[in-house]
């Protein structure tokens, strides 16, 4: 790796393409990184300019090697224990500096916990426009301006947006919308260790404690089968029944917001706009009405099966299979059947 020697003046007026902020996970790359790569190439293909990636964290050797095989020109790396966890001031300082140095036309991030926190901060620091949670990005051929689509009103409608002229345009992309890019051997990007000069002593926000919930089994976003319950489940005991069904299917339990607000399940089980975005093979929605804010988190599931006693429930307009029934009668029979079938 070489140290970055960057001269902002030399870049002025040039079209510097797209910079995306990659995310690592468990030593490798998070799924969203592959989706970002695809989105970045689509935009750069129309706007011109190169695709560069940035990755902040620590212990990144394997992640950087993988990122370098995704067909990007350069990978800017900050590999430092200071970046082990997302800290808004650390990430903002280095992101601002990097963007000012390499002057991309577009900065892409995933609409993830990191992206939705950092992107607005970066947009305000640079005083440019941001479109969050985009599900569609087009480049207007005549003006080279971006036309961005994103869900609004909790997913009930979409809004089409353009950003003011000042670059860079900052965009966070919704998870599981773009096809993940595939790494190729021999496509080695140039890896640049970015000298960040961030001083933790200057931070105004200090993180004094970090508590991880004892996580049982698979994470929601990785699950291939999710049995999700809503207000209709009625109690924590009801969720224990869903857990048995999930176990029989080798999956895990999710929830709409109502059970979280009622304290029947922990908050990290919430699927939706303000919870986890999931895309399992099978999403079984039990006693969930199908509010737009919930569907926003599960609509990319391969198969959605709904059990609801109300035939008018909106979930039946979003599910592939549905049954109008009281879950208390169906779930025990279903669990038994699945134990026999898949156990």
């Amino acid at each position, binding site marked *: 790796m070489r140290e970055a020697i960057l001269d902002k003046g030399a870049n002025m007026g040039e079209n510097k393409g797209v910079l995306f902020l990659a995310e690592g996970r468990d030593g490798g790359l998070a799924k969203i990184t592959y989706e970002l790569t695809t989105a970045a190439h689509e935009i750069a293909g129309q706007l011109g300019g190169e695709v560069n990636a940035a990755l902040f964290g620590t212990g990144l050797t394997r992640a950087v090697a993988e990122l370098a095989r995704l067909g990007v020109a350069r990978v800017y790396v900050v590999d430092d224990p200071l970046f082990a*966890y997302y800290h*808004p001031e650390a990430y903002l300082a280095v992101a601002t500096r990097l963007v000012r140095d390499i002057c991309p036309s577009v900065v892409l991030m995933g609409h993830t*916990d990191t992206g939705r*926190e950092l992107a*607005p*901060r970066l*947009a*305000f620091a640079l005083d440019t426009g*941001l479109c*969050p*949670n985009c599900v569609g990005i087009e480049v207007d051929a005549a003006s080279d301006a971006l*036309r961005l689509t994103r*869900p*609004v*009103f*909790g997913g*009930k*409608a*979409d*809004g*089409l947006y*353009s*950003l*003011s002229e000042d670059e860079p345009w900052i965009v966070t992309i919704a998870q599981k919308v773009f096809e993940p890019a595939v790494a190729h051997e021999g496509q080695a990007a140039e890896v640049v260790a970015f000298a960040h000069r961030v001083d933790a002593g200057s931070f105004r*926000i*200090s*993180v*004094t*404690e*970090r*508590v*991880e*919930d004892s*996580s049982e089994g698979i*994470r929601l976003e990785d699950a291939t*089968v999710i049995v999700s319950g809503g207000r209709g489940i009625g109690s924590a005991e009801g969720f224990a029944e869903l857990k048995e069904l999930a176990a029989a299917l080798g999956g895990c339990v999710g929830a709409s917001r109502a059970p*979280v*607000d009622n304290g029947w399940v922990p908050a*990290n089980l919430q699927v939706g*706009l*303000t919870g*986890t975005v999931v895309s399992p093979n*099978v999403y079984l929605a039990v006693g969930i009405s199908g509010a737009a*804010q919930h569907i926003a988190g599960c609509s990319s599931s391969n*198969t959605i*099966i*709904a*059990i609801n006693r109300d035939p008018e429930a909106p979930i*039946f307009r*979003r*599910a*592939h*299979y549905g049954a109008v*029934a009281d879950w208390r009668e*169906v779930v025990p*029979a*279903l669990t038994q*059947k699945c134990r026999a*079938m*898949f156990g």
Partner: protein
Amino acid sequence: MLTIAVCVKQVTDPEAPLSLFAIAADGRHLVPPPGTPPVLSTFDENALEAALKIKDAVGSRVTVLSMGNKLAKPVLKKTLAAGADELILLEDEQFEDLDSNGTAMVLAATIDKLGGFDIVLCGRQAADTDAGQVGMGIAAKLGIPAVTLARKVEVTDTSVRVERILPYGHEVVEAAPPVLVTASNEIGELRFPPVKAVIAAQKVQPTVWGAADLGVDLARSTRANLVKFFVPARDILCEMIGGSPQEIANGITEVLKTRIV
């Protein structure tokens, strides 16, 4: 005394089904069915609740700020009934359809005009636009630190202590005031006001300021332009599985069989 500002947005009820709404001819507005009253954006209610919890614990003066055009005063007065001390409405034709940047400019100018606050609270994102930007914008414009996604906010002798939600846990974050905090629903629902307080609140005349009172120039404030809203075609043909509970269980198992490997 500790001072807290809570920024509250009035929105169309996010829980009402879309089939009852129409998109206006200009494509830029959602028209609710007649008689649907606007509500306080849900996460902003959580932000107010966070402020009132601090008020209960250590005492503080809570000021509610709401920006818009043609605001529904009875709806916003709910904040006073719940326990806020003061309501300031920022109303101006220019404030209609401002983007996140413009909104943050108006709210930051108001906070400046009022001499600043120890804590500024906002919801994590508005229930209509879901953009999640205004809080961080206000902090950036005021030059104060911002902590997002709070599930608990406490005040100690020297700092504001926030429990911040992480995907699989939480972190404890501290910052010396002035600080901006955005609230998530885990903070708890806004308390139900006593009837007496509701009646008293309706009699209060809130302060109303416009762009000129604040001295904000919004001419070049727009960073994100809405072109239009539309309803994408998304309905899926749902195949219904009928019969007795056992037959339904059998039918669902048949579907699962082909999908679980």
